């Protein structure tokens, strides 16, 4: 599928949401750069990152939107939910309040995305097990009750970060294969890139600037 100007066949749009300081930007940075950014300025509005992955032999470009977590920014960030194929909902396992707010994040996500959007719950900061405030079982139950995928991850150590992004992509890809996700719908969050020549793009996947998340 490397013919044509694109060396990927799909673009999946993701969105990362969750309370402030749960580590959304760090998760994105860990995923795109494979390293932990300790001094990451807090996000104003939205940030953005990309990475090309492979699912079932298909190259897929993930286009990930990282949002500001403060409550008042929701008015701004709500417009980015539209057309997201995957939503990563993040909370901090050491802060219960971030877990308690999940249901409102979930409501927003359900209201603003389409039914085929894959929602993945991430309990971040799993490296700080000693300060844990939310048990794995509790969150797992919450995820099961709401039909979410779930994993505890650490943006610091990189544990499970890759998995969360990849599992989401697999699920989306599966939806495409099953025909549950309509590629032609504008809101699907998935773009199919045919091998036809288009406008040449300057940025091959190898060239990724430091994402300013």
């Amino acid at each position, binding site marked *: 599928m490397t013919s044509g100007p694109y060396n990927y066949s799909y673009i999946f749009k993701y969105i990362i949401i969750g309370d*402030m*300081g749960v580590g959304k930007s760090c998760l994105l940075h860990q995923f795109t750069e494979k390293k932990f950014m*300790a*001094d*990451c*300025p*807090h*996000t*104003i*509005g*939205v940030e*953005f990152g*990309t990475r090309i992955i492979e699912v079932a032999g298909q190259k897929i470009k993930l*286009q990930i939107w990282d949002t*500001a*977590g*403060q*409550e*008042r*920014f929701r*008015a*701004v960030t709500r*417009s980015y939910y539209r057309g997201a194929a995957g939503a990563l909902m993040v909370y901090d396992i050491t802060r219960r*309040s971030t877990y*308690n707010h999940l*249901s409102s994040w979930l409501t927003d996500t359900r209201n603003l995305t389409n039914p085929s959007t894959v929602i993945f719950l991430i309990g971040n900061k799993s490296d700080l097990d000693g300060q844990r405030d939310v048990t794995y079982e509790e969150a797992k139950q919450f995820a099961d009750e709401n039909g979410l995928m779930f994993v505890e991850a650490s943006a610091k150590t990189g544990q499970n970060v890759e998995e969360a992004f990849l599992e989401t992509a697999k699920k989306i890809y599966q939806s495409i294969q099953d025909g549950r996700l309509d590629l032609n719908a504008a809101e699907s969050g998935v773009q199919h890139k045919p091998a036809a020549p288009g*406008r040449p*793009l*300057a*940025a091959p996947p190898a060239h990724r*600037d430091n994402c*300013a998340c």
Partner: protein
Amino acid sequence: MEANVVTTQPPTPTAQRILTDPNLVSDGEIPTPERALLQKLEIENKRIAEDAKAHCLPKPDKMHSRKGSDTSVISVTSATSNDSETRPTPVEEDLWSLWGRIVINWDSECRRRKHFIRDLVRQGVPHHFRGMVWQLLAGAKASDKLYSSYIKEKSACEKMIRRDIARTYPEHEFFKKKDGLGQESLFNVMKAYSLHDREVGYCQGSGFIVGLLLMQMPEEEAFAVLVTIMQQHRMRDMLKPSMAELGLCMFQLENLVQEFLPELHYHFQSQSFATSIYASSWFLTLFTTTLSLPLACRIMDVFLSEGIEVVFKVALALLTLGKEELLSLDMENILKYLQKELPAKADANQDEFMKLVFSITSNQKKMKKLEKNCLREENRLLKQRVELQEKECSALAERLVKGQVDRAEGEEETYALEKEVQALRRANMDAQQRLAVAQDEIRSLEMTIAEKNSRQSSLEGVEKNNAKEDELARCLQRELVRARLHAAEREAAERELLERITLLENENKSLRKQRVDNNVAHLQDELIAVKLREAEANLSLKELGQRVTELSDAWKRHLQEHQQVIPPPSPVHSKVVLDIMATPKRLLRAWEGRSAETQKLEEELMSTKIREVEALTELKELRLKVMELEAQVQVSTNQLKRQDEETRLLRDSLDAALQRERALQVRQKEFQHKYSDLESKAKYDSMQANIRNMEDAQRIAELETEVSEYKMKNVMMATEGELRINADDSERVREMQEQIAELRAEIMRLEAWKARALGRTQISRAVSLEDDLEEDDKLKLILRRESTASLDLMRKTT
């Protein structure tokens, strides 16, 4: 603190460029007397700087006195600049002295040369004057009382602020150190602002602005400037929880882009690249997160002097600068370009960039119009949303009501079904009871039938036949043969019937084995059948009785006839009859013998006839039994059929009931789901309510601490009041003392007067001495009285 800033930020080359601008030079020509004054000032500054260095090097932030006058701050800034190795060039010195003059006479200069100052600011405020000039431009008045009271208070936003402190300028030297001076002052200012303006509280992004201010000035001043920035330049509305103003700015910017850079606007639209994606942070942080710090400082210079308009201009300038590249990029790369390459490009030539910024002219009227349009648009959207939500709400309410009604109906139905089932059960039990009763009845009826049959047979059993005439003998013989034939035939029939009976009985038994339901109609049918049979049996009984009487009559008649003719012959004579045929005696004897023979035959006939009758009765009986059994079989089969039907019906209704029950269960489940949904929602609500409660509790605690503080203050004031009362007392004492002193002075005066009077007497003896003495005594008396009065007063006061 200032020292830090200096090392991280090399002085801008602005100063040199100032002179290259002929406009400015002509404007900025400084008269010689002023120059002299500035030189003096400079010398003074140097002295103060040395002082400051000697005094407070370990604590650089103490260098400025908090309440420091304008000049002291300037002196410090210029002093630190002398510390650094970059000694000002003569041109810079000129510029500095110019700025120094402006700063000192800010108010008058501002009034006199407004445009000149604006242009000067546009060239960039010299780095060392920034702190001061920003304060002046903002018109901020630091109020240490207010600020220090805020510092002591606790803010609800503290946690949030803390979370972002380490994430504000994380790479900047001043803010890098965890819990260092920079972070601490940043936190203080943010917290103070969140307390000062509770509606805005803390908004992510404002930290960067505060950070920029703190790089130029101490906490209190930064706080004061922040307050004015927020109040005067739309920033406050931008950072409010609704962030409505930000949306408005985005709308305005989008329209401006459409006007100034139409191609870019259409390109962005085709890439569905919304303005808010790239410009939100520009407005919220005033470019501090996008551009380099020196450039951000220059933008802040102009922002403070010209307002939010500058942000639009800078945004448009940035887009203009990168227009060509942006047009060739797709959405992802546009964003990357706007975040990386474009700021670098603007940074590479700051003055050029700033010129570009100032070349953009904006139209205030147009902006206002845009604002109105945006508001209209927003209003429309909001109305739409409200309508939609109202619709949704009403639909939901309807659904809820419907669901509840459905549920109630379902419950009613289940109740009715239960009742029905119970009724059916009861009916079933009744039917079974009735069946048992009917079976009992059948049994009793059978018993009566059997009884009747036995009675009938006993009646039949009483019979005897007799007598036949001679003429009848042959006939009787023929009849006998026939009867025998009949008997044989009947016996065969009887056997056949018996077989059938046993068969039927077996069938009956097998039928009876099956559970037979009963019915009144069936029982009545059966009863009628039984009665019919009984009647039939009675009829046949009568018939038989008649026949018996007939036979017995015939027999009697025959016997009488016989006795009239001849006495009954003895059986011995019969043989002799044949021997004496010729003679009358013989004939008589023969006759006698023959009669004996007939008698015998008759007897035989009788017995056969009786047997025939017996056989007939038996036959009839058997036929009756067959009939009866057949009827019974029919009844049983009928019963079975009906029961089958009934069971089928019952089964059907049971199936239907089960189905309904299942449906109801499904519905019940649905309702349970709905219920659980509602419950979870309620839980969530209660959780939120709890959170709110906790927050409230926290606030209450805060308020309580406040209250206690106030109480403390109150106590203090009370004590102060007491003290003041005491002070009043002392004042009175002082008054008294003054009075005393006055009185003493009067005494002195009087004594002097007395002395003078005495002298006068010495000079003129002619004046009578007595008079004088009297006068003297009078004075003394007055004095004494006065002194005692004052003593009394003293006593009173003590």
